[in-house]
Protein backbone atom coordinates (compact mmCIF):
# COMPACT_ATOMS: atom_id res chain seq x y z
CA UNK A 1 0.00 0.00 0.00
CA UNK A 2 1.35 3.43 -0.95
CA UNK A 3 1.70 5.49 2.20
CA UNK A 4 1.38 9.23 1.75
CA UNK A 5 3.00 11.72 4.10
CA UNK A 6 0.91 13.94 6.35
CA UNK A 7 2.31 16.83 8.34
CA UNK A 8 1.27 16.82 11.98
CA UNK A 9 0.27 20.30 13.09
CA UNK A 10 0.67 22.04 16.41
CA UNK A 11 -2.49 23.01 18.20
CA UNK A 12 -3.30 26.59 17.31
CA UNK A 13 -1.88 28.31 20.36
CA UNK A 14 -2.35 31.91 19.26
CA UNK A 15 -5.91 31.80 17.96
CA UNK A 16 -8.96 32.84 19.89
CA UNK A 17 -12.30 31.11 19.52
CA UNK A 18 -15.84 32.45 19.62
CA UNK A 19 -18.65 30.67 21.44
CA UNK A 20 -20.13 29.35 18.19
CA UNK A 21 -16.72 28.06 17.03
CA UNK A 22 -16.30 26.26 20.35
CA UNK A 23 -19.76 24.76 19.94
CA UNK A 24 -18.79 23.41 16.53
CA UNK A 25 -15.41 22.13 17.71
CA UNK A 26 -16.79 20.40 20.78
CA UNK A 27 -20.22 19.32 19.60
CA UNK A 28 -21.76 20.95 22.69
CA UNK A 29 -24.79 23.23 22.33
CA UNK A 30 -24.04 26.93 22.89
CA UNK A 31 -26.52 27.00 25.78
CA UNK A 32 -24.51 24.36 27.64
CA UNK A 33 -21.27 26.26 26.98
CA UNK A 34 -22.91 29.40 28.37
CA UNK A 35 -23.91 27.54 31.53
CA UNK A 36 -20.36 26.25 31.93
CA UNK A 37 -19.16 29.85 31.77
CA UNK A 38 -21.81 30.86 34.34
CA UNK A 39 -20.62 28.11 36.71
CA UNK A 40 -16.99 29.18 36.25
CA UNK A 41 -15.79 25.99 34.53
CA UNK A 42 -14.94 27.90 31.32
CA UNK A 43 -13.39 31.34 31.52
CA UNK A 44 -13.57 33.68 28.50
CA UNK A 45 -10.65 36.03 27.85
CA UNK A 46 -13.16 38.91 28.01
CA UNK A 47 -15.83 37.95 30.59
CA UNK A 48 -17.49 41.38 30.49
CA UNK A 49 -17.88 41.63 26.72
CA UNK A 50 -21.09 40.94 24.80
CA UNK A 51 -19.30 38.49 22.47
CA UNK A 52 -17.11 36.14 24.44
CA UNK A 53 -13.80 34.89 23.08
CA UNK A 54 -11.76 31.99 24.45
CA UNK A 55 -8.07 31.15 24.42
CA UNK A 56 -6.86 28.14 22.41
CA UNK A 57 -6.20 26.08 25.55
CA UNK A 58 -9.97 25.83 26.10
CA UNK A 59 -10.39 23.48 23.12
CA UNK A 60 -9.09 20.47 25.09
CA UNK A 61 -11.38 21.39 27.98
CA UNK A 62 -14.55 21.61 25.88
CA UNK A 63 -13.76 18.31 24.18
CA UNK A 64 -13.41 16.71 27.61
CA UNK A 65 -16.71 18.36 28.55
CA UNK A 66 -18.43 16.84 25.54
CA UNK A 67 -17.15 13.36 26.39
CA UNK A 68 -18.13 13.65 30.06
CA UNK A 69 -21.59 14.99 29.23
CA UNK A 70 -22.35 12.31 26.66
CA UNK A 71 -20.77 9.34 28.38
CA UNK A 72 -21.80 10.08 31.96
CA UNK A 73 -25.07 11.88 31.11
CA UNK A 74 -24.19 14.81 33.37
CA UNK A 75 -26.30 17.91 34.01
CA UNK A 76 -24.49 21.23 33.34
CA UNK A 77 -23.85 21.90 37.03
CA UNK A 78 -22.39 18.43 37.67
CA UNK A 79 -20.45 18.77 34.42
CA UNK A 80 -18.96 22.08 35.58
CA UNK A 81 -17.85 20.49 38.86
CA UNK A 82 -16.38 17.42 37.10
CA UNK A 83 -14.51 19.68 34.65
CA UNK A 84 -13.06 21.78 37.45
CA UNK A 85 -11.86 18.63 39.22
CA UNK A 86 -10.43 17.06 36.04
CA UNK A 87 -8.58 20.30 35.35
CA UNK A 88 -7.25 20.37 38.92
CA UNK A 89 -6.02 16.76 38.53
CA UNK A 90 -4.24 17.73 35.30
CA UNK A 91 -2.45 20.57 37.09
CA UNK A 92 -1.45 18.27 39.95
CA UNK A 93 -0.18 15.64 37.51
CA UNK A 94 1.98 18.24 35.77
CA UNK A 95 3.40 19.27 39.13
CA UNK A 96 3.93 15.64 40.13
CA UNK A 97 5.76 15.00 36.85
CA UNK A 98 8.07 17.95 37.55
CA UNK A 99 8.78 16.77 41.10
CA UNK A 100 9.38 13.19 39.95
CA UNK A 101 11.82 14.41 37.30
CA UNK A 102 13.86 16.06 40.05
CA UNK A 103 14.10 12.95 42.23
CA UNK A 104 17.24 10.90 41.81
CA UNK A 105 16.43 7.74 39.86
CA UNK A 106 18.30 5.32 42.12
CA UNK A 107 20.86 5.60 44.86
CA UNK A 108 24.15 4.92 43.14
Amino acid at each position, binding site marked *: *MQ*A*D*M*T*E*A*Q*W*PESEREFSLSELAELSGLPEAVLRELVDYGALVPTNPGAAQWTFGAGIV*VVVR*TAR*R*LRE*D*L*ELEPQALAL*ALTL*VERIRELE*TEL*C*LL*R*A*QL*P*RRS*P
Partner: protein
Amino acid sequence: MKYKDYYKILGVEQDADIDAIKKAYRKLAHQYHPDVSKDADAEAKFKEIAEAYQTLKEPEKRAAYDQLGRHQPGEDFRPPPDWGGQFGDTQFAFDDVDLADLFAGLAGRAQHRQGGAMRMPGQDFEVTAHITLEDASRGTTVDLNLAIPEYDAQGRLHRVQRAFKARIPKGATDGQRLRLRGKGGKGANGGRDGDLYLNIALHPHSLYRVSGHDLYLDLPLTPWEAALGAVVEVPTLGGAVHLKVPAGTHAGQKMRLAGRGLPKPQEGAGDLYAIAQIVVPTVLSERERALFKQMAETSNFNPRGHFKQEARNAS
Protein backbone atom coordinates in the same frame (compact mmCIF):
# COMPACT_ATOMS: atom_id res chain seq x y z
CA MET B 1 -17.85 -11.08 12.84
CA LYS B 2 -16.98 -11.64 16.51
CA TYR B 3 -19.82 -11.88 18.98
CA LYS B 4 -19.83 -9.62 22.04
CA ASP B 5 -22.11 -10.32 24.97
CA TYR B 6 -23.44 -6.85 25.77
CA TYR B 7 -25.44 -8.10 28.76
CA LYS B 8 -22.41 -9.74 30.29
CA ILE B 9 -20.26 -6.64 29.64
CA LEU B 10 -22.72 -4.53 31.66
CA GLY B 11 -23.22 -7.35 34.19
CA VAL B 12 -27.02 -7.43 33.80
CA GLU B 13 -29.55 -10.22 33.09
CA GLN B 14 -30.98 -10.54 29.61
CA ASP B 15 -34.41 -9.46 30.85
CA ALA B 16 -33.07 -6.42 32.76
CA ASP B 17 -35.24 -3.33 32.42
CA ILE B 18 -33.93 0.00 31.12
CA ASP B 19 -33.38 1.38 34.64
CA ALA B 20 -31.21 -1.59 35.63
CA ILE B 21 -29.20 -1.19 32.40
CA LYS B 22 -28.76 2.53 32.96
CA LYS B 23 -27.66 1.98 36.55
CA ALA B 24 -25.16 -0.72 35.62
CA TYR B 25 -23.74 1.46 32.85
CA ARG B 26 -23.36 4.52 35.07
CA LYS B 27 -21.58 2.56 37.77
CA LEU B 28 -19.10 1.12 35.27
CA ALA B 29 -18.72 4.47 33.46
CA HIS B 30 -17.74 6.21 36.70
CA GLN B 31 -15.15 3.50 37.25
CA TYR B 32 -13.65 3.34 33.76
CA HIS B 33 -14.25 6.66 32.00
CA PRO B 34 -10.82 7.54 30.56
CA ASP B 35 -11.11 11.17 31.69
CA VAL B 36 -11.67 10.04 35.26
CA SER B 37 -10.00 6.64 35.67
CA LYS B 38 -6.33 5.94 36.32
CA ASP B 39 -6.72 2.32 35.21
CA ALA B 40 -4.29 1.53 32.37
CA ASP B 41 -6.91 -0.25 30.24
CA ALA B 42 -9.68 2.20 31.17
CA GLU B 43 -10.05 3.39 27.58
CA ALA B 44 -10.52 -0.09 26.10
CA LYS B 45 -12.85 -1.14 28.90
CA PHE B 46 -14.93 2.01 28.66
CA LYS B 47 -15.27 1.62 24.89
CA GLU B 48 -16.73 -1.83 25.39
CA ILE B 49 -19.08 -0.64 28.13
CA ALA B 50 -20.26 2.36 26.07
CA GLU B 51 -20.80 0.18 23.02
CA ALA B 52 -22.93 -2.24 25.03
CA TYR B 53 -24.97 0.61 26.53
CA GLN B 54 -25.49 2.41 23.20
CA THR B 55 -27.12 -0.73 21.86
CA LEU B 56 -29.10 -1.93 24.87
CA LYS B 57 -30.55 1.45 25.88
CA GLU B 58 -32.56 1.79 22.65
CA PRO B 59 -35.44 -0.66 22.31
CA GLU B 60 -35.09 -0.97 18.50
CA LYS B 61 -31.36 -1.70 18.67
CA ARG B 62 -31.79 -4.01 21.65
CA ALA B 63 -34.42 -6.02 19.76
CA ALA B 64 -32.08 -6.22 16.75
CA TYR B 65 -29.25 -7.36 19.02
CA ASP B 66 -31.43 -10.02 20.67
CA GLN B 67 -32.31 -11.30 17.18
CA LEU B 68 -28.66 -12.17 16.66
CA GLY B 69 -29.09 -14.97 19.17
CA ARG B 70 -26.66 -15.74 21.96
CA HIS B 71 -23.15 -16.91 21.27
CA GLN B 72 -19.95 -17.25 23.22
CA PRO B 73 -18.06 -13.94 23.51
CA GLY B 74 -15.45 -13.81 20.76
CA GLU B 75 -17.20 -16.54 18.75
CA ASP B 76 -17.28 -15.95 14.99
CA PHE B 77 -20.85 -15.69 13.78
CA ARG B 78 -23.00 -14.25 10.99
CA PRO B 79 -26.34 -12.56 11.58
CA PRO B 80 -29.37 -14.61 10.42
CA PRO B 81 -30.05 -14.20 6.65
CA ASP B 82 -33.11 -11.97 7.08
CA TRP B 83 -31.53 -9.85 9.83
CA GLY B 84 -30.67 -6.76 7.75
CA GLY B 85 -34.03 -6.69 5.94
CA GLN B 86 -36.02 -6.92 9.14
CA PHE B 87 -34.48 -3.78 10.53
CA GLY B 88 -34.31 -1.73 7.36
CA ASP B 89 -32.40 -1.73 4.15
CA THR B 90 -28.81 -1.01 5.14
CA GLN B 91 -26.55 -3.55 3.56
CA PHE B 92 -23.50 -4.78 5.30
CA ALA B 93 -20.51 -6.55 3.97
CA PHE B 94 -20.45 -8.58 7.17
CA ASP B 95 -16.82 -9.55 6.88
CA ASP B 96 -15.16 -6.22 7.44
CA VAL B 97 -17.34 -4.62 10.10
CA ASP B 98 -17.67 -5.32 13.78
CA LEU B 99 -20.71 -5.46 15.98
CA ALA B 100 -20.50 -1.76 16.92
CA ASP B 101 -20.48 -0.73 13.22
CA LEU B 102 -23.60 -2.80 12.68
CA PHE B 103 -25.57 -0.83 15.26
CA ALA B 104 -24.02 2.49 14.28
CA GLY B 105 -25.30 1.64 10.80
CA LEU B 106 -28.83 1.22 12.14
CA ALA B 107 -28.65 4.62 13.84
CA GLY B 108 -27.28 6.24 10.69
CA ARG B 109 -30.21 4.91 8.69
CA ALA B 110 -32.76 6.11 11.21
CA GLN B 111 -31.27 9.58 10.96
CA HIS B 112 -31.30 9.34 7.18
CA ARG B 113 -35.01 8.47 7.24
CA GLN B 114 -35.85 11.40 9.51
CA GLY B 115 -33.76 14.24 8.26
CA GLY B 116 -32.72 13.43 4.71
CA ALA B 117 -29.29 14.62 3.68
CA MET B 118 -28.07 16.30 6.85
CA ARG B 119 -24.53 17.63 6.90
CA MET B 120 -22.55 15.37 9.18
CA PRO B 121 -18.94 16.15 10.12
CA GLY B 122 -16.63 13.14 10.09
CA GLN B 123 -15.59 11.59 13.37
CA ASP B 124 -12.36 12.66 15.07
CA PHE B 125 -9.99 9.89 16.08
CA GLU B 126 -7.14 9.77 18.56
CA VAL B 127 -4.06 7.57 18.54
CA THR B 128 -0.96 7.53 20.70
CA ALA B 129 2.47 7.69 19.08
CA HIS B 130 5.29 6.30 21.24
CA ILE B 131 8.57 7.94 20.28
CA THR B 132 12.01 8.25 21.82
CA LEU B 133 13.41 11.39 23.37
CA GLU B 134 15.96 11.61 20.57
CA ASP B 135 13.15 11.40 17.95
CA ALA B 136 11.24 14.16 19.74
CA SER B 137 14.27 16.41 19.73
CA ARG B 138 15.10 15.88 16.04
CA GLY B 139 11.57 15.39 14.70
CA THR B 140 10.56 12.07 13.20
CA THR B 141 8.03 10.24 11.07
CA VAL B 142 5.67 7.56 12.31
CA ASP B 143 3.76 4.93 10.36
CA LEU B 144 0.07 4.88 11.11
CA ASN B 145 -2.28 2.12 10.20
CA LEU B 146 -5.94 2.62 11.07
CA ALA B 147 -9.22 0.90 10.35
CA ILE B 148 -11.74 3.68 9.88
CA PRO B 149 -15.47 2.99 9.37
CA GLU B 150 -16.72 4.50 6.11
CA TYR B 151 -19.81 4.30 3.94
CA ASP B 152 -19.25 3.41 0.28
CA ALA B 153 -21.19 4.85 -2.67
CA GLN B 154 -24.00 2.30 -2.13
CA GLY B 155 -24.39 3.36 1.50
CA ARG B 156 -22.76 0.19 2.81
CA LEU B 157 -20.58 0.36 5.84
CA HIS B 158 -16.99 -0.87 5.67
CA ARG B 159 -13.89 -0.68 7.79
CA VAL B 160 -11.28 0.80 5.52
CA GLN B 161 -7.62 0.21 6.27
CA ARG B 162 -5.72 3.42 5.85
CA ALA B 163 -1.96 3.53 6.04
CA PHE B 164 0.03 6.72 5.97
CA LYS B 165 3.10 8.36 7.38
CA ALA B 166 2.91 11.36 9.64
CA ARG B 167 5.74 13.78 10.15
CA ILE B 168 6.15 14.89 13.74
CA PRO B 169 8.04 18.19 13.80
CA LYS B 170 10.78 18.69 16.35
CA GLY B 171 9.56 20.23 19.57
CA ALA B 172 6.95 17.70 20.62
CA THR B 173 7.11 16.48 24.18
CA ASP B 174 5.33 14.00 26.43
CA GLY B 175 1.57 14.45 26.55
CA GLN B 176 1.45 16.84 23.58
CA ARG B 177 -1.38 16.57 21.07
CA LEU B 178 -0.79 17.12 17.37
CA ARG B 179 -3.43 17.30 14.70
CA LEU B 180 -3.57 15.55 11.34
CA ARG B 181 -6.15 17.56 9.51
CA GLY B 182 -8.79 15.59 7.62
CA LYS B 183 -7.34 12.19 8.52
CA GLY B 184 -10.30 11.13 10.67
CA GLY B 185 -13.63 9.75 9.45
CA LYS B 186 -15.13 11.08 6.20
CA GLY B 187 -17.80 13.71 6.53
CA ALA B 188 -21.21 12.98 4.98
CA ASN B 189 -23.32 15.23 2.73
CA GLY B 190 -20.75 18.00 2.58
CA GLY B 191 -19.75 17.90 6.26
CA ARG B 192 -16.06 18.38 6.97
CA ASP B 193 -13.78 15.37 7.33
CA GLY B 194 -12.79 14.52 10.88
CA ASP B 195 -9.28 15.01 12.21
CA LEU B 196 -6.85 12.53 13.65
CA TYR B 197 -5.22 13.56 16.90
CA LEU B 198 -1.81 12.20 17.70
CA ASN B 199 -0.96 11.99 21.40
CA ILE B 200 2.78 11.97 21.94
CA ALA B 201 4.11 9.57 24.57
CA LEU B 202 7.86 9.48 25.18
CA HIS B 203 9.59 6.22 26.02
CA PRO B 204 11.37 6.46 29.37
CA HIS B 205 15.04 7.37 28.80
CA SER B 206 17.93 5.70 30.60
CA LEU B 207 19.58 9.03 31.47
CA TYR B 208 17.09 11.90 31.26
CA ARG B 209 13.78 12.51 32.97
CA VAL B 210 11.36 14.85 31.20
CA SER B 211 9.17 17.64 32.52
CA GLY B 212 7.67 19.74 29.75
CA HIS B 213 10.65 20.69 27.60
CA ASP B 214 13.13 20.52 30.50
CA LEU B 215 15.34 17.50 31.12
CA TYR B 216 16.76 16.29 34.42
CA LEU B 217 19.93 14.24 34.72
CA ASP B 218 21.56 12.70 37.79
CA LEU B 219 25.19 13.83 37.97
CA PRO B 220 27.23 11.57 40.26
CA LEU B 221 30.23 13.35 41.83
CA THR B 222 33.02 12.14 44.11
CA PRO B 223 33.20 13.81 47.54
CA TRP B 224 36.43 15.59 46.52
CA GLU B 225 34.92 16.84 43.21
CA ALA B 226 31.99 18.24 45.17
CA ALA B 227 34.25 19.81 47.81
CA LEU B 228 36.98 21.17 45.55
CA GLY B 229 34.99 21.87 42.41
CA ALA B 230 35.69 20.20 39.07
CA VAL B 231 35.07 20.35 35.36
CA VAL B 232 33.10 17.25 34.33
CA GLU B 233 31.75 15.97 31.04
CA VAL B 234 27.95 15.87 30.86
CA PRO B 235 26.03 14.06 28.10
CA THR B 236 23.37 16.20 26.36
CA LEU B 237 21.06 15.47 23.41
CA GLY B 238 23.40 17.50 21.23
CA GLY B 239 26.58 15.73 22.43
CA ALA B 240 28.79 15.93 25.51
CA VAL B 241 29.56 19.34 27.04
CA HIS B 242 31.84 20.42 29.87
CA LEU B 243 30.22 21.61 33.06
CA LYS B 244 32.04 23.53 35.76
CA VAL B 245 30.94 22.18 39.13
CA PRO B 246 31.57 24.90 41.75
CA ALA B 247 33.53 24.12 44.92
CA GLY B 248 31.23 23.25 47.84
CA THR B 249 28.49 21.65 45.74
CA HIS B 250 26.12 19.59 47.87
CA ALA B 251 23.88 16.65 47.01
CA GLY B 252 20.61 17.56 45.31
CA GLN B 253 21.94 20.89 44.04
CA LYS B 254 20.68 21.66 40.52
CA MET B 255 23.02 23.02 37.87
CA ARG B 256 21.30 24.48 34.84
CA LEU B 257 22.57 24.02 31.31
CA ALA B 258 20.44 26.62 29.52
CA GLY B 259 18.93 25.60 26.19
CA ARG B 260 20.18 21.99 26.43
CA GLY B 261 16.69 20.50 26.93
CA LEU B 262 14.15 19.59 24.26
CA PRO B 263 13.68 22.08 21.44
CA LYS B 264 10.39 24.00 21.58
CA PRO B 265 7.99 24.13 18.61
CA GLN B 266 8.55 27.67 17.42
CA GLU B 267 11.92 28.68 18.78
CA GLY B 268 14.17 28.15 21.75
CA ALA B 269 14.57 25.06 23.85
CA GLY B 270 14.04 23.85 27.39
CA ASP B 271 16.91 23.56 29.86
CA LEU B 272 18.91 20.59 31.08
CA TYR B 273 19.33 20.33 34.85
CA ALA B 274 22.18 18.26 36.23
CA ILE B 275 21.38 17.20 39.81
CA ALA B 276 24.45 16.59 41.94
CA GLN B 277 24.71 13.26 43.69
CA ILE B 278 27.64 12.58 45.94
CA VAL B 279 28.88 9.05 45.61
CA VAL B 280 31.46 7.32 47.79
CA PRO B 281 33.49 4.32 46.66
CA THR B 282 32.08 1.08 48.09
CA VAL B 283 35.48 -0.54 48.32
CA LEU B 284 38.42 1.56 49.55
CA SER B 285 42.04 0.92 48.77
CA GLU B 286 44.51 1.02 51.68
CA ARG B 287 45.69 4.44 50.56
CA GLU B 288 42.15 5.83 50.18
CA ARG B 289 41.20 4.53 53.60
CA ALA B 290 44.27 6.21 55.11
CA LEU B 291 43.43 9.53 53.44
CA PHE B 292 39.77 9.41 54.56
CA LYS B 293 40.96 8.61 58.13
CA GLN B 294 43.34 11.53 58.02
CA MET B 295 40.48 13.74 56.86
CA ALA B 296 38.24 12.49 59.69
CA GLU B 297 40.92 13.30 62.26
CA THR B 298 41.77 16.69 60.77
CA SER B 299 38.42 18.17 59.82
CA ASN B 300 36.13 19.77 62.39
CA PHE B 301 33.26 20.10 59.92
CA ASN B 302 30.00 19.01 61.58
CA PRO B 303 27.01 18.75 59.19
CA ARG B 304 24.68 17.91 62.15
CA GLY B 305 25.36 20.95 64.28
CA HIS B 306 21.73 22.10 63.92
CA PHE B 307 20.47 18.91 65.63
CA LYS B 308 22.00 20.05 68.93
CA GLN B 309 20.67 23.56 68.43
CA GLU B 310 17.17 22.12 67.91
CA ALA B 311 17.52 19.98 71.06
CA ARG B 312 18.55 23.02 73.10
CA ASN B 313 15.60 25.04 71.81
CA ALA B 314 13.20 22.26 72.70
CA SER B 315 14.30 21.91 76.32
